[in-house]
């Protein structure tokens, strides 16, 4: 097992709600914290809540020009200002100025990003990769201390792919994905779950800053391997629905020859892969545009080395 790691304590932490303007739990939470930041306060660091995409929030849509949560790449962040740029490109550069710049020493230490999904995912903790030590330890802490429902970990970065999400502006980040919740709807149960998990995560940072040593551990996590598209007609319209046997079965094993789609005439389409995979984001509303029915993942076990803040000699 690798030797223990030391990282600098965190001083600037941001929490973002409304990266997508119709995912309401985070929007209501961020608005509440902007009015009353008391519950975010901890003694060893500052927490800044903010609304990710104000114009999309006002219109209660996912985005106005393009998906903000795909715009934090070098291509968009370093492009020069031009006329008629999508709103989200301009916004991404402003966010990068305020909470970044991405990759620099001035960037915020940590950013939380709050999301909802129409898929039956329960509570998902989304980290870019298992190599992000601090977020992995934070997830482990959350899993042990927030026990009302399981909080599986989803590693979203494909190998070789550049990070593109809003929290990649900070030095480290964690996204929460809670569902199922329809777009534009606030469910009280998910709202309070999200709130409690953030509280738990902030407690972790406080303990970390104050010198707690977090021992090494083994942890299960799901790593994305690809996406499964809907079958479509020649004109691009989807020709089948997620099969009732797959609907709501996020994170349960999908085996070769299990049904995945059902056509409107009642025929079944089976999974043709060779190995068992774990599907997520099954029937997510926002993915219809890209014709993605679900995301494919593999289950892995990772060994994570011990961690403490570098204050401890």
């Amino acid at each position, binding site marked *: 097992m690798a030797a223990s790691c030391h990282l600098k304590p965190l001083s600037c932490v941001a929490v973002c709600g409304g990266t997508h303007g119709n995912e309401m739990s985070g929007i*209501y939470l961020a*608005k509440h914290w902007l009015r009353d930041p008391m519950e975010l306060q901890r003694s060893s660091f500052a927490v800044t809540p903010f609304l990710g995409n104000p114009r999309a929030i006002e219109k209660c849509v996912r985005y106005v020009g393009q998906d903000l949560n795909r715009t934090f790449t070098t291509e968009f962040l370093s492009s020069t200002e031009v006329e008629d740029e999508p709103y989200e490109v301009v916004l991404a550069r402003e966010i990068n100025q305020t909470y970044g710049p991405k990759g620099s020493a001035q960037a915020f230490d940590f950013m939380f990003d709050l999301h909802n999904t*129409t898929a039956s995912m329960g509570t998902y903790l989304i980290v870019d990769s298992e190599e992000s030590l601090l977020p992995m330890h934070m997830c482990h802490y959350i899993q042990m201390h927030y026990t009302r429902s399981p909080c599986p970990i989803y590693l979203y970065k494909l190998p070789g792919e550049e990070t593109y999400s809003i929290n990649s502006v900070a030095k480290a980040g964690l996204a929460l994905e809670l569902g199922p919740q329809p777009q534009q709807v*606030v*469910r009280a149960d998910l709202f309070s779950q999200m709130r409690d998990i953030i509280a738990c995560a902030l407690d972790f940072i406080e303990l970390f800053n104050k010198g707690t040593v977090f021992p090494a551990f083994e942890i299960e996590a799901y790593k994305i391997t690809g996406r499964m598209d809907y079958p479509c007609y020649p004109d691009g319209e989807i020709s089948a*629905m997620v099969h*009732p046997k797959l609907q709501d079965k996020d994170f349960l094993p999908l085996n070769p020859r299990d049904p995945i789609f*059902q056509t409107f005439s009642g025929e079944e389409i089976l999974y043709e892969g060779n190995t068992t995979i774990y599907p997520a984001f099954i029937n997510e509303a926002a993915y*219809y*545009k890209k014709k993605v029915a679900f995301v494919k993942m593999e289950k892995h076990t990772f060994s994570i080395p011990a961690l403490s803040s570098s204050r401890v000699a």
Partner: protein
Amino acid sequence: MDYIIVSILTQKNENSLNVSFSFMTTSSLELVLRNQELNILWKLTCFKGIKEASTALVLNSCLEMHCIFSIKALSLRQTSCMLNEQSLNQLNRMTSCYVVHEAPVRRVAIFGGTHGNELSGVFLVKHWQENGDEIQRTGLEVRPFITNPRAVKKCTRYIDCDLNRVFDPDNLGRQITEDIPYEVRRAQEINHVFGPKNSNDAYDLIFDLHNTTSNMGGTLILENSRNNFTIQMFNYIKNALAPECCPVFLIEHPNLKYATTRSIAKHPVGVEVGPQPQGVLRADILDKMRKIIKHGLDFVHIFNEGKEFPPCTIEIYKIMEKVDYPRNKNGEITAVIHPSLQDQDWQPLNNGDPIFLTVDGETINYEGDCTVYPTFVNEAAYYEKKQAFVKTVKVKLTAKGIRSSLS
């Protein structure tokens, strides 16, 4: 507003008609039952509260007996009895023993995409446009139709305004100018093809397919409590789907009723299936909607073939009032639907039950005199319409016997 809720159950024996009433009145009143000669058959005085009473009326030798039922408020204050005329008509219908002959139903339309992000109807209609075998029945024409194609293309509820609110005479008669909202122009086109509304040329029957984010199951929406044909159809569908529940929602109300797309037909039928998020297509929800349509079309076919449907009584939920979210002085929502109310559409809500939860964890409770049955609880599209949920009351509705006039 004082009001009376009346539910009436009749049981016809050989020589007599047993009539049972249950009602609630917020003021004292007198119920009087008279025959055609205006002789008093029965009189009852009652005070505020919930009352039940029954009487047996002797039928005369001919097959028909018409009764006139009047309700007179005894309090000094003039009350307006919202359902007064309706209950009078209802009783008149019920105590008549003959069967109504209705015109056969030949022209049927199935509308999908009235709201472009309610996908079950969109995909069913598109599928039926490619392959309509499943919706064909002999003796009638069934036409599947996408009502708001631009909204469907963008997968949004509407472009300029809600299509399902603009089929009123003002909008239907409005002059077409450049800046007319897309949906008003579209409404006029639809009225031209499937109407005109209130004319003899209008389609006989329109099924309008919708989804909701609320946990309403497969709900049938009734616009008119006097439409015997539709009530009989709903009775048929409910029996066909039993033991699965199929609530019937009556939107007839002086202020709250809205001018729907389907209202251009002689028999408008709303089909509202949930819960399903906007922009999502669930196989189980689509299947439920499909079954409702199948049974509805079967009913029309059987009716056209000459079957007589005896008088029937169904339990329905009648719209009473909309309830908005608590808001601050800036109009922002300050509390969300309480977890105890979330997903509890059609379940009884009593005085003192929690309905909202503030961000600070405070519970706001329902305050009301009677049990209500909430619906459209936490419907996404209704945040902008200032509707957290809708209160309904359970009422029994009776339809006359019907038979096709051509048989």
